[in-house]
């Protein structure tokens, strides 16, 4: 089980032209800014290339590429180096922007594209599950968000009201 091998595999897949652009999101993406928190899988957001002769986008090319290299498909996941990896298309404008504005990080000589802290926090707010709210609190407590940039992202994607509710619910009595 080695998440760095997952990153290397995805980089190679990009170099081989299977995907156009990718960025790591979710808990693994958050680990680039916060303390590590246990997670069971890796969310990788990708722009898919349409299959030849088709206008449809499909993860089939990714699955074919990875299974030929030892990956195993498990439902919506493909297991690489012991980690279930989910390849996700950008499903809404916020995630599209997060993918477009993702930043390059270095992992001991290996490059990896990761959502910005502000986009990870905004996606967590938008998704809104308990664990996502906990992650958003972690981002705030760690002080890694650029407040102006975060507010701009929230406003642009219609999340200002959700943020206000979150503030009232969780941050009202913060010291």
């Amino acid at each position: 089980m080695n998440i760095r091998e997952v990153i290397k595999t995805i980089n190679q897949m990009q170099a081989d032209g299977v995907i156009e652009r990718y960025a790591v999101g979710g808990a693994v993406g958050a680990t680039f800014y916060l303390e590590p928190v246990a997670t069971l899988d890796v969310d990788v957001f990708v722009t898919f290339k349409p299959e030849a002769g088709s206008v449809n986008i499909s993860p089939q090319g990714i699955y074919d590429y990875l299974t030929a290299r030892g990956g195993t498909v498990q439902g919506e996941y493909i297991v690489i180096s012991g980690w279930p990896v989910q390849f996700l298309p950008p499903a809404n404008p916020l995630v599209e922007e997060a993918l477009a504005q993702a930043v390059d990080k270095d992992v001991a000589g290996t490059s990896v594209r990761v959502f910005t802290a502000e986009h990870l926090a905004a996606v967590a707010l938008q998704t809104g599950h308990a664990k996502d709210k906990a992650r958003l609190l972690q981002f705030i407590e760690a002080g890694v968000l650029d407040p102006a940039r975060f507010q701009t992202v929230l406003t642009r994607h219609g999340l200002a009201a959700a943020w206000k509710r979150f503030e009232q619910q969780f941050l009202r009595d913060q010291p």
Partner: protein
Amino acid sequence: MTFDLARILESKRAFRRQLAARPIAEKLAMLDALREREITLRQPGQSAVTESSGVLHEKPAPYRTGRKGGKKR
């Protein structure tokens, strides 16, 4: 050792800051170790999904689909 809650909470925050400041390669290695521990601890059907092969993974995140005001997944 102290029972002063304020000091305890501050020490927890300080420890989390120290963890967050570790090199990313080290933090990713921690994720590997944490996942192995989760697999050991979690019971099937509790906030996770097991496939027939025994691969444990999170319930898929509900990343909202569609344009603003559009149909959501």
